[in-house]
């Protein structure tokens, strides 16, 4: 059992070394917005009120435990019921509570006041990634976990050294300018998710069919990390949020950059879930079937595997298998359509944000792997289907 043994040793070593590299954080993370600061203060206040009450009340109890024991010869007094005392210990907590509710009320009202935002971002949650749509600046993209899978899967053997921001890193972070009031319009495409970035003081469910709002205004440039806060299926632990707060100039540059990488939005596809713009590529590149297959495996691993499984077996009944699927073995047109538009009302979202070549590759991959006999699809076919 050398594997088991090494793992046990590794685990023990990790445990013993804990005090050395320790991160024994015991407090709310440093706030980065005025609201988060208010939350921080509220927590601090109520924490100390509780500690104070605890010391007084349990000081009395422990004194009694110490002094009023039979072994010390204590005789039981027989007193009970005392209206004065009972009124006092009802009224005093009540007053303390009012004192705590007052500042909290102010913060609740502040948090709800999303009026006059400087900009709005529509956030759509998917199983298991986020889509950000900058409503004023016309930038739109997906953001998903970028930690390599081999750092995560350690069932057989310990993975390679984990990135410093293991599980809290994404391919495309959210970028916002500092000092601007950013309003988030949060919704979901499938199940309930939660957009949660503690240092920004935002934790808001994305609920399918409803748009909820939240807002923040970051003071200090910096990178703020968060995660999905509401259980949303098997990859719930793997849909982080990264927010980069930058200066106004850097933000403008970033927007220009993003836009340059995107061709003008394609003609709207029928009534499909709106398609994000596909990245530019060399339209004249000729793809061989083998190239398509090789590229398709990569695209599949990044976009489809979480639901349909590495071996195309899916996780029925939620996510159907693609091995032996009627669609992957049926007419090409139907599958191209499905990938472009998604299937509304199910977790199968539109993948129109992928380039023609990537889509053709992944479709080819699904139609030629695991015993499927659907045959390959060329980028040109995807291109014409987009029209």
């Amino acid at each position: 059992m050398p594997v088991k043994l090494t793992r046990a040793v590794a685990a023990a070593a990790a445990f013993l070394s804990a005090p050395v590299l320790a991160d024994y954080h015991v407090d709310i993370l440093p706030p980065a917005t005025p609201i988060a600061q208010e939350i921080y203060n509220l927590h601090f206040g109520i924490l100390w009120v509780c500690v104070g009450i605890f010391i007084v009340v349990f000081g009395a109890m422990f004194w009694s435990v110490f002094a009023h024991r039979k072994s010390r010869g204590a005789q039981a007094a027989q007193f009970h019921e005392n209206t004065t005392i009972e009124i006092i210990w009802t009224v005093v907590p009540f007053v303390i509570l009012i004192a705590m509710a007052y500042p909290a009320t102010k913060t609740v009202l502040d948090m709800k006041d999303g009026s006059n935002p400087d900009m709005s971002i529509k956030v759509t949650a998917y199983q298991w990634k986020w889509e950000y749509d900058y409503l004023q600046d016309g930038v739109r993209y997906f953001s998903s976990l970028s930690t390599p899978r081999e750092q995560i899967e350690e069932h057989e053997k310990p993975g390679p050294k984990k990135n410093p921001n293991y599980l809290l890193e994404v391919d495309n972070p959210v970028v916002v300018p500092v000092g601007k009031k950013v309003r988030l319009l949060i919704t979901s495409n499938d199940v309930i998710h939660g957009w949660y970035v503690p240092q920004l003081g935002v934790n808001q469910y994305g609920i399918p069919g409803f748009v909820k709002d939240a807002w923040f205004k970051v003071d200090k440039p910096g990178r703020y990390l968060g995660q999905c806060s509401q259980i949303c299926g098997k990859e719930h632990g793997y849909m982080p949020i990264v927010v980069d707060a930058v200066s106004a100039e850097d933000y403008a540059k970033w927007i220009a950059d993003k836009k340059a990488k995107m061709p003008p939005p394609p003609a709207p596809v029928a009534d499909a879930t709106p398609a994000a713009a596909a990245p530019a590529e060399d339209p004249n590149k000729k793809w061989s079937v083998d190239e398509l297959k090789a590229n398709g495996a990569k695209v599949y691993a990044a976009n489809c595997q979480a639901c349909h499984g590495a071996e195309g077996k899916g996780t029925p009944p939620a996510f159907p298998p693609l091995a032996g699927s009627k669609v992957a073995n049926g007419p090409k047109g139907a599958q191209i359509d499905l990938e472009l538009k998604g299937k509304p009302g199910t977790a199968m979202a539109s993948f129109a944000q992928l380039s023609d070549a990537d889509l053709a590759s992944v479709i080819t991959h699904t139609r030629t792997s695991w015993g499927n006999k659907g045959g390959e699809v060329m980028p040109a076919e995807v291109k014409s289907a987009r029209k």
Partner: protein
Amino acid sequence: MSTATHAHDTHGHDHAHAHDHHGPPAGFSRWMYTTNHKDIGTMYLWFSFAMFLMGGSMALLIRAELFQPGLQLVEPQFFNSLTTVHGLVMVFGAIMPAFVGFANWLVPMQIGAADMAFPRMNNWSFWLLIPAALLLVGSFFVPGGAAASGWTLYPPLIIQQGMSIDMTILAVHILGASSIMGSINIITTILNLRAPGMTLMKMPLFVWTWLITAYLLIAVMPVLAGAVTMLLTDRHFGTSFFNAAGGGDPTMFMHIFWFFGHPEVYIMILPAFGIVSQIIPAFARKPLFGYASMVYATSSIAILSFIVWGHHMFTVGMPAAGNLFFMYATMLIAVPTGVKIFNWIATMWKGSMTFETPMLFAVGFLCLFTIGGFSGLVLAITPVDITLHNTYYVVAHFHYVLVSGALFAIMAGIYFWLPKWTGHMYSEGLGKLHFWLSMIGFNVAFFPQHFLGLAGMPRRIPDYALQFTEWNQISTVGAFIFGFSQLLFLYIVISTIRGGAKAPDRTWEGADSLEWTHLPSPVPYHTFETAPVVK
């Protein structure tokens, strides 16, 4: 409180001969067909313990996976099933049945009744638990695995899963039916079968808290049944209660669920209050400080529990007025809860205390439940909750109220009444060892989770970022200490049943309810066939 007429001569016949003609039938049919409240109470308690070990094993598997970042032991989907079924099993299989077991044993004896009002229904409400448990646990073995949506069963996530969900829904229905039958039985028994002179305001507090709990159960179990039935029809019969595309609203499920869910947490804690309210005076050798105010505090908590459900939903995006209402209402519950804590401490004050195992668990309860109450108060503050919702802070909070609250009270109650039930004393040394191991293990396991939550670690995740490693490792070590010390508890209970020093009839000097003053230890199979007279 109630003064005894006189021991022994009130229970019909001399107990030395009781077993000859009124003893239980032997073997399996004794348990299968029994209508005896003591037998049924025993079965409830063993069932609860079995489920506790089952749910506990799942918890330990969860904690083992969380010992280090990365996935070492389980797959994420299975991990989600583990948390979900752990939660459901602990709530519906371990804690609730344990209290019903106590009610069965104690309510008739404490009010001077011969048995429960509906003995046959009592048998039925126990045996219903078995198929429900089989459905819950069996759902691990169907395609797609057990429910993986969290014990809150939120749609649309839950709609995606397979037949395990239908099994879970059926299990919840059966458990609900069992609870409702149990509650009707308890209410009827308390209201109709009290011995002459046992007025409502003379009843031991355990009976009072159960009376109120039973009303809560009858009020909310049908609500849960309605919610899961809507899930079922959404899944199979084309309705869209919770599906926005069909005109429904997933948020509605949360409202309905938590309208059940918050009273449910009081269902799990009020009987615990009752048990502790009997143990503390017994070991302080001093009457409870404010009996009447305890009754009123319990009732106000029960009533308030119906108007605070929204504190579980501060992040769905309710309007400010909604958030504020639920914040104020939730904070208000702290007042009657405080009254209870103060009462217990005033009872201890100037008592003549000893600290046998039941009292240790009761004092442990008092300290740790209060910590859970304080973290509850922190979470009641809407803005603070928003930053802590669905993080490990919440996991810490509800384990402080459920484990060191409800479960510690159950342990305290078992040690307290075991001598009465079995006629034998348990081993005080081992009992104390069990207490200290539980106390230490529990705090090591759950206190660090506050820190994890404050640092933003979400709950229900199988893997986490590196900065959470240290506290998670400590938590796992504590969980294993806590978990394995429960095997010691099992050993103590079994060896007490098998033998041990003879327990005096009034085992605890300061205990004064009817089962101590009027009945021998062990209690005969039938008691109070002629009602005692309470002065």
